[in-house]
């Protein structure tokens, strides 16, 4: 028998967490002499108050979905892939090489090719730590962290060397051919008579991320491979008893994880910047860890968590603009508090609530 009804588990607990987080964040804002209600107002307005705001929110959410899904699949195999940042960066190289190689006639052809490029490069970057974990027992947390630094350095090296655009002063590649341009929300919605901001970078990759979430759900709960990954993640010893190969599961789960992280580059590199720029991941790979934690490693939860984090990111930028007294660091504090309450302090709310439900059930019977 479950301790709580499902709706309480999925909706009530996160909601109370959020309220608590905003309450404490409000206290912090109050302490620096600002109005906490203004803070909440500007954050929400900034994230959802205009099609531009929504466009940016969903654009960030797309990144967080890819990164969160990448962390989640590894979690299910009881591995902590902290290397999403680096895998996404290397995925960007894959996307760039594919898109610069051919003068693509149309995005419908360029996109599948770019997905393959990004996924393979991301997976390859994850494959090395995966192999070291499976065969040599080197802890995946340590190796993936180190691979983030290598990836960042490699990206910087390439963008100052052979990939550098001769037309630019900056560490960036040549622009992609116009045929590789992904439709933006503005372009997709305009023929339908819906006016959407031209400036927002939201593009078709958002749908790709949603599709990946569905695909991951199917993989985990409908296929043999997903069954084996989950069995291995829950109980490694039992998995061995059942004849499930630890090496195989470890490596495959990490390859999928790396591929998902690599696809993040589709959104940023192909969808928004249309060229490769050093440091383009901008920490989204790390945010993915919090997204996966908050979404309880369930694809549906991750989509919701990614939307929330998208709102936080976009709302945070707006807050900086609207309330100059709130610094960049303060925005980080607010975001961190939300992560703290929703992820790390989850049991603080969950356990008393479970007891409450049990008591209520007892009182009824």
């Amino acid at each position, binding site marked *: *028998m479950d*301790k709580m009804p499902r709706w309480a588990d999925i909706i009530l607990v996160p909601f109370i967490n959020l309220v608590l987080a905003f309450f404490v964040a409000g206290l912090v804002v109050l302490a620096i002499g600002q109005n906490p209600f203004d803070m909440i107002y500007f954050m929400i307005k900034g994230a959802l108050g205009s099609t531009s705001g929504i466009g940016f929110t969903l654009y960030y959410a797309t990144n967080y979905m890819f990164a969160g899904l990448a962390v989640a699949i590894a979690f299910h195999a009881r591995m902590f892939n902290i290397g999403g940042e680096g895998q996404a960066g290397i995925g960007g190289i894959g996307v760039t090489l594919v898109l610069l190689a051919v003068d693509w006639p149309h995005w419908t052809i360029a996109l599948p090719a770019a997905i393959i490029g990004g996924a393979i490069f991301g997976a390859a970057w994850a494959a090395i730590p995966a192999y070291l974990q499976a065969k040599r027992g080197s802890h995946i947390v340590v190796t993936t962290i180190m691979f983030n630094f290598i990836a960042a350095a490699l990206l910087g090296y390439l963008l100052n060397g052979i990939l550098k655009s001769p037309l630019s002063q900056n560490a960036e590649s040549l622009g992609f051919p116009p045929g590789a341009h992904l439709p933006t929300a503005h372009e997709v919605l305009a023929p339908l008579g819906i006016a959407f901001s031209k400036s927002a970078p939201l593009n078709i990759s958002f749908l790709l991320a949603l599709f990946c979430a569905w695909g991951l759900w*199917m993989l985990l709960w*409908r*296929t*043999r491979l997903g*069954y*084996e990954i*989950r*069995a291995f993640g*829950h*109980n490694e*010893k*039992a*998995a*061995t*008893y*059942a*004849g*499930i*190969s630890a090496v195989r599961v470890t490596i495959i789960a990490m390859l999928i994880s790396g591929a998902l992280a690599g696809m993040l580059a589709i959104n940023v590199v192909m969808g928004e910047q249309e060229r490769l720029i050093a440091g383009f991941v901008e920490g989204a790979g790390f945010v993915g860890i919090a997204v996966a934690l908050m979404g309880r490693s369930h694809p549906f939860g991750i989509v919701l968590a990614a939307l929330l984090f998208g709102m936080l990111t976009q709302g945070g930028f707006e807050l900086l603009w609207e309330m100059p007294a709130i610094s960049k660091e303060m925005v980080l504090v607010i975001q961190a508090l939300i992560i703290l309450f929703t992820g790390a302090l989850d049991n603080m709310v969950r356990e008393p609530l*479970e*007891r409450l439900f*049990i008591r209520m*059930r*007892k009182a009824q019977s």
Partner: protein
Amino acid sequence: MDGANTAGRPETGAPAIELVGISKAFGPVQANKDISISVERGAVHGIIGENGAGKSTLMSILYGFYKADAGEIYISGQKTEIPDSQAAIAAGIGMVFQHFKLIDNFSVLENVVLGAEDGPMLKGSLVKARKTLTSLAEEYELDVDPDALIEDLSVGHQQRVEILKALYRQADILILDEPTGVLTPAEADHLFRILRNLKAEGKTIILITHKLREIMDITDTVSVMRRGEMMSTVKTSETSPEDLAERMVGRKVLLSVDKKPPTIGDTVLKIDNLRVVDDVGVERVKGISLEVRAGEILGIAGVSGNGQSQLLSVLGGYMNATGSITLNGQAIDLSGKNSDGQSRRARGIAHVPEDRQSEGLVMDFMAWENIVFGYHHDLAYQKNRLLMDNAAIRADTEAKMERFDVRPPHPRLQAKNFSGGNQQKIVLAREIERNPDLLLVGQPTRGVDIGAIEFIHQQIVELRDQGKAILLVSVELEEIMSLADRIAVMFDGHIMGERDPAKTDERDLGLLMAGVNEQQGAA
């Protein structure tokens, strides 16, 4: 330790321990319901009950691990609060846990003194402890070398150290939780001699066990617990094992296994000179040879940790070995790609592992996910090349749950929410229903309640009667003796000898388990 009864504790005629109306709930589960018992000074009092009956909770309350929701504790007639184990020790209560709480790389002396030092410097305490230990050893047959390291001691000796620890802290009341679970029969006999000596000195002993024979052997009074309630307390001399079993389960129970003589066929499993080296390079199985034929149950007896687990792991396909094993005359791989669990299952070997919670089941998986565990590649469970047919699996689960009387019969319930007996039935249903040529069974009834034991034994015998070969590993001698058609005893990685269950007894097997073969001389 001059005089076990320290000054300050009243010497009255009051019971040594009296519990009045103890209740304890964990969330919705009422682990103890209004429990009252009274144990006379100098008595050996047994507490029996099935798993989850609330015995351990009750003792944890007495030792200060849990706080009761309601009720009172009287020690020697005085109302006593026991908020933590320090208070329990101060009240004269000593506890010997099922899993010892010893520090392996400390000496016996250091373990005894630990937590009961007289001051910041150790020397004085150690000298005093050495003297006490010597006198205790003489008094109660509790002899252990005070300078030996715990890791070098046998399990039986380690248990004596636990008892010494309690006595050194001047315990008047000794609680032992399943003390014989890890002992050979000879060690258990020695333990009981110690307990009788302690009793003669006026100590009060509470013995928690599920073994009816021990209760009959040593206790003066016995309390039966069922589902958190104290069902009855009776004088041991006025009861019988059948009567106790019935009180525990709430219905009549068949204690012995009802089986026909075996119809033995061809050799199914043949093991020749099998050697197993574990992860840390220790040889655990040292060249054993065995045969199991169709229609028979070969029971492997032995104290746990003598290589039986490794034998099962090799046969089950998750440990490498050297030597040779044939199944129905054909060799099976002992290392490499075709030696994993999948290959074994494909060859018709089913395996009910020793530890269902860490091996046989994924506790967070639902029953229907567990019922295909290891067989999830089976074509019957696939919808197409990509997807599993979850609906078909659930239907299959429902049928198997009904046939094996798994309660509650809900395929969507997580394995961890079933009782031990029902978890074991899920594993058995999965393995037996595959109709294997060879069934490996490890500790089939460990932590399983008496009612389910009866059912599980019947299922195993039924499979035997269908002409299948069964290899049974159990540390419960009674189980081996009643189920097996042939008994092999393992000791230190060797087979010490084989016996016909009809022509042997516990003493003979006990000696083999301790490494002595009277028919061939010592090993």
